[in-house]
């Protein structure tokens, strides 16, 4: 449907079909138990974080894990003006968007259904963490843009949203840390999958299940859990425990980085 306010291209444009000449299917773990990028099954990609990067927002962070890059910011806590929406507890509004060039296929500028679902997931997770009683009649706005999606975008976005809120000095119960996990029918688990390994339309390895889990490390609570695919109950338990351990590992790393960033700020 043509959007009058944006430059829309020709309506019949299609993604260029890619024809693979060799059989590309392989196994997620090769004979040395290493993945295609050399990691072990439970190894997370290196993390890079920079807070306060968006000067025009109250709090912001740039988070990068491997090739998945995302910016998140908390803009403002504004008053809800409409009278029938008055409540003693604040509300959370989250806008999540993939940049048009971030995925393998072109993403439209308008929010797609998938992005709206992810926005809702993140705002639901944040509702449990922010002390909304301190913001009566107000709305906390979070905005997340993903520059490049190389797997685990939802978990990284959720982590980035909580770090942005911390940077904005919004009162929250705990840091929220998320990781993604991919489970295969051959009983192999991969933590923090890349886009080729992740359960989804671009996965090289079909079947199995994909897990996304977000955890509050100090309170030892699960903030958000999402599973797609098909899995046995006992295997699901193993997946949840593995996710939990990876989240805790990631949380120690992030807390250390936040502390260093805070000390730099104080020195300035």
């Amino acid at each position, binding site marked *: 449907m043509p959007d009058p*306010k*944006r*430059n*829309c*291209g*020709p309506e*019949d*444009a*299609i*993604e*260029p*079909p*890619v*024809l*693979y000449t060799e059989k590309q299917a392989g196994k997620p773990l090769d004979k040395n138990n290493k993945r295609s990028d050399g990691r072990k099954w439970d190894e997370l990609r290196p993390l890079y974080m920079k807070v306060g*990067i*968006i*000067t*025009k*927002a*109250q709090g*912001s962070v740039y988070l990068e894990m491997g*090739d998945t*890059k995302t*910016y*998140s*910011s908390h*803009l*403002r806590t504004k008053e809800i003006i409409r009278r029938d929406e008055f409540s003693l507890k604040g509300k959370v509004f989250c*806008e999540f*968007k993939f*940049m*048009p*060039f*971030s*995925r*393998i296929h*072109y993403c439209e*500028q308008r*929010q797609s259904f998938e992005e709206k679902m992810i926005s809702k997931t993140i705002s639901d997770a944040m509702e449990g963490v922010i002390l909304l009683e301190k913001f009566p009649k107000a709305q906390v*706005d979070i*905005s*997340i*843009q993903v*520059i*490049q*999606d*190389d797997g685990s975008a939802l978990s990284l976005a959720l982590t980035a949203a909580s770090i942005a809120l911390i940077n904005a000095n919004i009162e929250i119960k705990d840091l929220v840390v998320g990781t993604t996990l991919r489970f295969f029918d051959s009983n192999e688990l991969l933590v923090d999958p890349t886009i080729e390994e992740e359960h989804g339309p671009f996965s090289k390895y079909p079947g199995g299940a994909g897990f996304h889990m977000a955890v509050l490390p100090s309170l030892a609570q699960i903030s958000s859990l999402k599973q797609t695919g098909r899995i046995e109950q006992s295997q699901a338990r193993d997946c949840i425990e593995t996710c939990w351990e990876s989240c805790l590992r990631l949380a120690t790393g992030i807390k250390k980085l936040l502390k260093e960033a805070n000390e730099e700020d104080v020195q300035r």
Partner: protein
Amino acid sequence: MADDFRYAQPKQYQRLFLKDDIRPDGRPVTGCREVKIHCNTVSSALGSAMVCFGNTRVIAGIKGRFAEPTINNPSSGYIIPNVSLPGLCNTKYRPGMPVDKAISISHKLESISTDVTDLMELCIVPGKVVWCLYLDVVCINDDGNVLDAAVLAMTAALFNTWLPTTHINEETGLVTVVPGGEKTKMILKFLPVTVTLSVFDDVTLPDPCESEEQIEAGTVTCCVDENSKMRAMWASADLPDDMMAAALLYIQKRASVLLSVLRKVSQRDTP
């Protein structure tokens, strides 16, 4: 207290600084913010660039799709620019429909980008399949002068775009992209760069930051290419002739500085 005065009387605040030939953020009156360009930052795009003018940060990326050409131009591809100022970049923007500012910058980019490359180069099968390149510029931090940053990012992204080779199946006529195949660099006819001067009280201030943009009387923007030819000009302020001439001279100098940075960075960031 200085902050209170700045919010209550922004124009007076600026005038006090301009009396001493300095701007509120410490720059001299004709000074511009530091420019940083990084090319090929996003590997999922055919070409990408990130441009920072001081705190203003903008990312441009190019994605390609196949489309049918129009009947009037059966061998011409498309370049579709779009600028988005998401809620992320500044508290004054809300999520949803694009803001007027974003639409106006998109239109300017469109008028500059129609000529920037030979659209016949984007043809794959004349009359049937052409490349349709979506050029999207997303602002991450809006601290003023998004137009200049967006145009520079567009030029840098196009300059570093590599189109994948296509394979045409003779029997079915299906055009496919060869995965991991050779890529051809896109050739640009010229490198457009814009320079914006904000007009305030008979003084022209180049590269305005956000607080200066809010109190300006108008702007003069000029698009110049590497051969010092003027490609486009937009002016929304009334300037006397001599000031306009001085402004154009300044714009030419600044444009050559921006282009030299772009060329140096493109060599550094080529994969």
